[in-house]
C-alpha cells in the first residue's frame, strides 16, 4: 500500500497523532451529566445484574475506544489517500491509443461523433484507473504521443489535443514498461495492432455516402486534355440520392444526381477539357449523411500550355530531337555565347554550360566540367560512373528509370545541402537538386 498525498513516514506520524488525540479525547471527554436519584438501590440491582451477565458490558469501553480510534484512523488515512495496488491495480503503465482516422468524425444516432465518444471513453478510462497508474496517450496519425505520466490533468489535455485527421494510420510502438494497451477505435480503418491490445469500440453504424477516389489524369487521346476520375460509395444500409458537383476555376461546374443502392459503387471519368487549370473540387450533398469529411475531394488540374524551355547547348542532336518530340515542351535552342538570362522562359536546360549567375528559372544542368561560383566545386572526376540508386519518390525523378543510362564521366562534388537524386554504388552523387530555385550551392 502507498499513500498519494503523503509519504509513508508522514502517514505513520499522522496515524499516531490521530490515535493519540482520540484516546486523549476519549479520556478527557465531557463529564457525564450528574443526575440525583432518590435511591440508587434499584439502579444498582439492574446494573450489577447486567455487568455480571453481559460480556458486552465488560468490553463496552474497550470496544468503544477501539471503534473511535479505528474511525479516526480511517479518516486520517482517507486524507492521506491510500492506494492498495492489489486492489486498485495501481502501478500500471497503460498505452492509450485513439484512432484519429477521418471515419471517427461520423455522427452517431445521438448526434455526437464517434470521436467525441472516443474522447469520452478515454477520459472515463483514465478517471476510473488507479491514481498512481501512468498513461501514455498517442494517436494513430503520429501527431500526438505524450510521455507517460500519472498526472491526470496532463493526460486529459493530451486527449483533448487530438483530433481526427487524414493521415496514414500507424499504431504507435509499445515500449518495455507498458503493461496494458487500450485502443479506442471505430474499427473502420484496418490497422494491425499488437496481440495484447484491448480494443474499445466506438463504432456505430452510420448512413454515409462518400467520395472514395478523385483523380485528374491526362487524356491519352488528346493533347493537353484532362479528365477527372471519381468514385463514390454508399456505405449505408439504405438507398441514397446524392448530388455530385464538380467545380473548377471560374464558373465551370458539373452537376449530377446519383442514386445509389446500399453498398453500391459509382465510378466514372468526367471530361474536364473545358475546365481551366487550377484546383478542382468535387462535393456530394446527401441528406442525413453521417460523415461530411468524405463528401469533399480536391484535385489540381494542370494549366493547359506548353513549357517554354530555353536550351543552351553547343550541339546535342539527341537532346534537341527529344525536346522537339515532346508535345508539352516548346524548346528554344541557343548557343552558349547567345545566352542571356530571360525570365520569360519557364525552364532552362544547360547542356555542358554553366553561366556566371544562376538562371532565374528552374534549370537542369548536364555536364562534368562545369565551373561557376554558384555551383559546388568539383573535387575530381569519376570515369564511367554507374548508377547505384536513385530517389524514385522525388517529384523530379518520378517515372524515370536509370537502369540503361550510361555516363562517360562525371564531376565528383560534395552534396552538402543538396538533395541527392542519384548516386553511384559508392555513394558518389551523380544527380543533385536544390530545393531553392536560383540559389544552388
Amino acid at each position: 500500500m502507498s499513500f498519494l498525498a503523503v509519504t509513508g513516514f508522514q502517514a505513520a506520524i499522522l496515524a499516531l497523532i490521530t490515535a493519540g488525540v482520540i484516546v486523549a479525547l476519549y479520556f478527557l471527554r465531557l463529564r457525564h451529566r450528574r443526575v440525583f436519584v432518590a435511591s440508587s438501590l434499584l439502579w444498582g440491582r439492574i446494573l450489577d445484574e447486567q455487568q455480571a451477565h453481559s460480556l458486552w458490558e465488560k468490553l463496552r469501553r474497550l470496544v468503544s475506544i477501539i471503534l473511535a480510534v479505528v474511525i479516526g484512523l480511517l479518516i486520517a488515512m482517507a486524507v492521506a489517500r491510500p492506494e492498495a495496488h492489489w486492489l486498485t491495480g495501481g502501478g500500471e503503465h497503460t498505452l492509450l491509443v485513439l484512432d484519429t482516422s477521418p471515419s471517427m468524425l461520423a455522427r452517431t444516432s445521438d448526434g455526437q461523433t464517434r470521436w467525441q465518444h472516443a474522447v469520452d471513453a478515454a477520459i472515463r478510462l483514465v478517471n476510473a484507473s488507479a491514481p498512481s497508474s501512468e498513461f501514455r496517450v498517442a494517436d494513430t496519425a503520429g501527431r500526438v504521443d505524450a510521455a507517460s505520466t500519472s498526472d491526470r490533468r496532463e493526460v486529459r489535455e493530451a486527449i483533448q489535443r487530438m483530433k481526427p485527421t487524414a493521415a496514414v494510420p500507424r499504431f504507435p510502438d509499445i515500449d518495455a514498461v507498458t503493461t496494458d494497451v487500450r485502443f479506442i477505435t471505430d474499427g473502420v480503418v484496418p490497422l494491425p495492432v499488437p496481440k495484447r491490445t484491448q480494443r474499445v469500440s466506438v463504432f456505430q453504424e452510420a448512413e454515409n455516402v462518400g467520395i472514395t477516389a478523385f483523380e485528374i489524369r491526362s487524356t491519352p487521346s488528346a493533347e493537353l486534355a484532362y479528365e477527372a476520375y471519381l468514385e463514390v460509395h454508399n456505405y449505408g444500409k439504405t438507398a441514397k440520392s446524392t448530388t455530385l458537383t464538380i467545380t473548377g476555376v471560374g464558373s465551370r461546374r458539373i452537376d449530377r444526381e446519383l442514386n445509389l443502392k446500399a453498398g453500391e459503387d459509382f465510378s466514372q471519368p468526367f471530361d474536364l477539357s473545358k475546365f481551366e487549370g487550377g484546383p478542382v473540387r468535387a462535393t456530394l450533398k446527401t441528406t442525413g449523411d453521417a460523415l461530411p469529411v468524405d463528401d469533399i475531394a480536391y484535385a489540381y488540374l494542370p494549366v493547359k500550355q506548353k513549357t517554354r524551355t530555353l536550351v543552351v547547348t553547343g550541339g546535342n542532336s539527341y537532346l534537341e530531337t527529344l525536346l522537339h518530340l515532346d508535345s508539352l515542351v516548346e524548346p528554344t535552342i541557343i548557343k552558349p555565347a547567345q545566352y542571356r538570362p530571360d525570365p520569360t522562359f519557364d525552364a532552362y536546360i544547360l547542356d555542358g554550360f554553366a553561366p556566371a549567375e544562376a538562371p532565374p528559372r528552374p534549370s537542369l544542368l548536364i555536364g562534368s566540367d562545369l565551373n561557376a561560383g554558384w555551383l559546388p566545386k568539383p573535387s575530381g572526376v569519376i570515369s564511367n560512373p554507374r548508377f547505384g540508386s536513385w530517389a524514385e519518390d522525388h517529384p523530379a525523378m518520378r517515372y524515370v528509370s536509370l537502369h540503361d543510362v550510361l555516363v562517360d564521366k562525371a564531376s565528383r562534388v560534395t552534396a552538402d545541402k543538396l538533395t541527392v537524386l542519384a548516386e553511384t554504388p559508392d555513394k558518389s552523387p551523380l544527380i543533385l537538386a536544390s530545393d531553392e530555385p536560383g540559389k544552388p550551392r
Partner: protein
Amino acid sequence: MATTVSLFNDEFLKKLEYLSILSKRLFAGQFRAERRAKRRGTGLEFADYRQYVAGDDFRHLDWKAYLRLNRLILRLFEEEEDLPIYLFVDVSQSMTYGNPTKVDYARRVAAALCYIGLSNLDRVHVVAYADKIRGELAPQRGKGRIFRVFKFLEEVAVGGETNARESFKFYCTETRRRGLAVVISDFFDTAGFQSGLDILRHFKHDMFILHIASHEEVDPALKGELVLIDSENNVSREVTVTPSLLASYKEEYTRFCTEIESYCSKYQLGYVRTVTDFPFEELVLKVFRQGRFLK
C-alpha cells in the same frame, strides 16, 4: 410544610371529621373514648354474661335472670377506649425526591390521618424517622392538638439514610402500648424494607403501609450518558441509559412494589401505594376508604 394548614381548608377538614381510622384488631386503650376496647367495662353496648363473684359491681347484676334461675349473673358491657395510633413518617433524604416531594406528600397524609385520629379521641403518636428517630411528638388526643402536629411535621429535620430497622427497634423497645402503626415511606432501605416492618410486626402492632412514590422514579425521563447519584449516600454510578435499560429499571421497580405488596398480603397488613402527583384529597377520602383503612 408551611402550607399544610392552608391546604387543609375548612371543607376538607369537615370531611375528615366524619372519618375514623379502622383497626382490624382491638387494642387496650388508656382513656375512655369512642372505640371498642378489649376490656369489658361501663360502656353502653351489652357484651356478655358471667357468674357473679364477690367484689363485682352489683349494679350490673341481672335481677331478672336471678328470679328465673336463682343464680347471680352479672351483665358485662363493652368498654370504649381510645386507640393508640403510631404514624411513622419517613423523612430520609430520598423522600425529598419528586415534584411535589414525597416528604411533603407524606406530611400532608400524616397530618390528615392525625386529624382523623384526634377527632375520634384516639391517642396519636407521630414519629419521624430516617437513619434513626429524627423526632417524636408526644401522644396527642383531641382535635385541638392538631396544630401541634402541624408544627411538628413542619419543623422536623429531613435528611439522612433510611434505616427503618434501627429506628423502629429503638422506638418499640421503649414501653409502648400496642396499637395501629401507620408507616408512610418510599421504602428505599438498603437493609431491605422488610427489616423495619418485621420489628413492628414483632411488637404485634396492627399495621398499615402507605407506599409513596414519585412520578420521576416510577417512569424516569433519563437518557444518555449519566452519573446517577444516590440522594441518601451520594454513591454515584456511571450509566448509559438506553431504552432497554430504562425498561429493565421499570421492570425492577414493578418487582420492588410487588415485593412490598406481597409482604403486606402475606402478613395481612393494609397496603396502599400512591404517587405524589395523585390528588391528595382523593387519596384520603376515597382510596383509604376503599382500602378499608378509613370508614
